């Protein structure tokens, strides 16, 4: 590794990576850009349809339930909890990567386990929310929610987009959890200790943060706007 670099080094002249990163990390970054376009296309589609619609349901009314709280009106409280959990799992992921930098195998294990737990909790929350919405009659092609102005919904776009995009995000969280578990198994087996670096943790960390970041946009688009 030639991290001790003189200022005069010609980074683009071949022989080494111009960004001083491995190809794997580079690929992860490019993949994330590509995936950002996938989500971007979905969210922009949602935006145009919503912009064209004359009326739209009020998220404060749609998302007002909380588990075991019956009919108490708690607008957006549950989704705030979900978001908090996911963001906390990003924090634990940062700590896992940090521990990896210092070759601290126990630290990586601890924080990675917590990240996985956070991811699973988020997925559990999403499962509850979907089940709840399904119970009140919402699904792909079924929109029971009246518009904010009181008129009855004529289009199912609200629920169609909600389930498709949060579902697509949930799929990403699921694959993120699976990747984290695979990396955790390798950490426990000592693969990275043997290899001399924990870069794999960093790579899945990039993916995890990306999935978190996407949630911020999904959350904004569906719950706040």
């Amino acid at each position: 590794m030639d991290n001790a670099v003189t200022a005069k080094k010609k980074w683009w002249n071949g022989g080494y990576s111009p960004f001083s990163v491995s190809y794997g990390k580079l690929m992860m970054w490019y993949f994330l850009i590509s995936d950002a376009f996938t989500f971007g296309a979905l969210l922009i589609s949602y935006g145009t349809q919503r912009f064209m619609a004359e009326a739209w349901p009020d998220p404060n009314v749609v998302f007002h339930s909380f588990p075991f709280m019956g009919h108490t009106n708690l607008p957006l409280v549950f989704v705030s909890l979900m978001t908090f959990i996911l963001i906390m799992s990003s924090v634990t992921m940062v700590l896992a990567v940090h521990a990896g930098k210092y070759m601290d195998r126990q630290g990586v294990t601890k924080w990675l386990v917590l990240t996985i737990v956070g991811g699973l909790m988020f997925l559990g929350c999403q499962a509850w929310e979907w089940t709840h919405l399904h119970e009140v009659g919402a699904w792909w092609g079924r929109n029971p929610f009246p518009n904010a102005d009181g008129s009855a919904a004529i289009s199912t776009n609200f629920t169609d987009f909600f389930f498709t995009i949060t579902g697509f995000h949930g799929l990403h969280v699921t694959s993120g959890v699976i990747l984290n578990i695979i990396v955790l198994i390798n950490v426990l087996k000592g693969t990275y200790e043997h290899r001399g670096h924990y870069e794999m943790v960093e790579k899945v960390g990039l993916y995890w943060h990306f999935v978190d970041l996407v949630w911020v946009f999904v959350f904004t688009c569906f719950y706040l706007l």
Partner: protein
Amino acid sequence: MSNEATLHSQDLAHHGHVEHGHGNGHDGHDHHHEETFISKYVFSMDHKMIAKQFLITGIIWAIIGAFFSVLFRLQLGYPEATFPWLESILGHWAEGGRITAEAYYALVTMHGTILVFFVLTAGLSGTFSNLLIPLQVGARDMASPFMNMLSYWFFFLASVIMMSSLFVQTGPASGGWTAYPPLSALGDASIGSKIGMDLWLISMAIFVVSSLLGSLNYISTILNMRTKGMSMTRLPLTIWAFFFTAVLGVLSFPVLLSGFVLLLFDRHADTSFYLSEIFIQGKALAHEGGSAILYQHLFWFLGHPEVYIIILPAMGMVSEILAVNSRKPIFGYLAMVGSLFAICILAFLVWAHHMFVTGLNPFLGAFFVLLTLLIAVPSAIKVFNWLTTIWRGNIRFTPASLFSIGFVSTFISGGLTGIWLGNSAIDIHLHDTYFVIAHFHIVMGVSAFFGMFAGIYHWFPKMYGRYMNQTLGFIHFWITLVGAYLIFWPMHYEGMAGMPRRYFDYSTWASFNQFEGLNQFISFVVIIVFATQLLFVFNFFYSIFKGRKLTTPNPWNATSLEWTTPINPGHGNWPGEIPEVHRWAYDYSKDGKDFIPQTVPVSPDESNH
């Protein structure tokens, strides 16, 4: 990561188990181990073998796709005639020897899908990016050989699914290669909108995965794995072209995927993303609030960059082949790179010119006209640079250089009509006519094929250690060039007369009866040109086994790195150290020397280029 470490990790990746380091990552030669048939020819991780897999799969698809065009041209040229042999191969799709309207639409749709995606995307970029990137940048293999292998096998899976859709009872997708809803969203809309459409969408989704895996590898390899001295401005133009192609793929295919996901939901989950106020068989559907134009935006956000994904690799190879065969440096190297970059950027800003008449706001159309016409600037830069490259050159007329010159010819004549079509006012008259067919077949289909043929003839010696037969190559070139013009040139006139595309039978319109003879003529030439392509396929496979053997590792006296490898390079490409690069790739006819390879150090008394 240093070069040594990069090579090291890559070398380990060759062996599939990363945890056991060999400690000697320098030398691909040291790691020769017994390869089984499966690991060498089937699940190969050698970029050269993967390139051949892409190429041969692409050739098979090209024969099928071109044969489909022969079938529907029979209908267009001879609408009254019957061909009993058609019934024996197509069964009830050609009852009485005349293909049915449903079969016609399925053939047209699959012709487009196969040639655009499976031949000119995977078959072209998949083949030559894989073959040339590691060889020309000086790397032992792709950044991730494993992902590279996956890229091919995802493509193979997509191919199998697309192929199987040809054999389902209701036939393959038949709503056009663009798969516009509502035709593609409602199973009741036509028989081609049933299971064939589902298989089409699934196959294309897997195709996107394959493309993504490939493109990520191409980009990372070009940026990260260049050998010592190979700065970005010393890269052959082929590599620059593959780089921008990959960038286009990484950024545009995901949007198509999103569009397909929504379409699948519309088909199977009763959603209304693209559907609104639709009557089918006189019955109103419940779908409200969707927009069919949304799909068109999502589709063409890929669809337009896609035509550059097809043409850029051809441009890169043509630049290289013209320089080699004119014994002159490429004219305006940086302008060539800059115009590739400009095309890459503009590619994302012009998609709505496919939608001028779909209900797009005319004011919005004006911006897309401007941006579309802007593409003429970098395109013209490229054309003039090719012409000035061969100008007063010492031209060697090999099949590869002839096809390159043919590429420049068709790119000009097809590109000029693009200026017409890019104008939203003229488009009101010309949209959806044979003028459009003529335009994009010449500028994209024929040109890209010419680039691909040029690449195959030129790099065949590197792939198989043998030459292809030159005489057959010349016959192939001249019949294809003349035939392509004879097929597509008359279509401009048909289009200007208003003859719409995608019609099964024109004989019932008095206004198009005048083209009866012309249509027959076109169909006749199509059959001849198709037969000539079979001659090429014969030449290709015959030469693999019986072609004249190479006696020198550098048959074309070229400067780039791939010709510094042995005639039949093993996995790892160079037996010893990877050579260091000291100059750009275009030192031809310099200081009285015919050519100076990139590996030769610059001598102090050499003139500047």
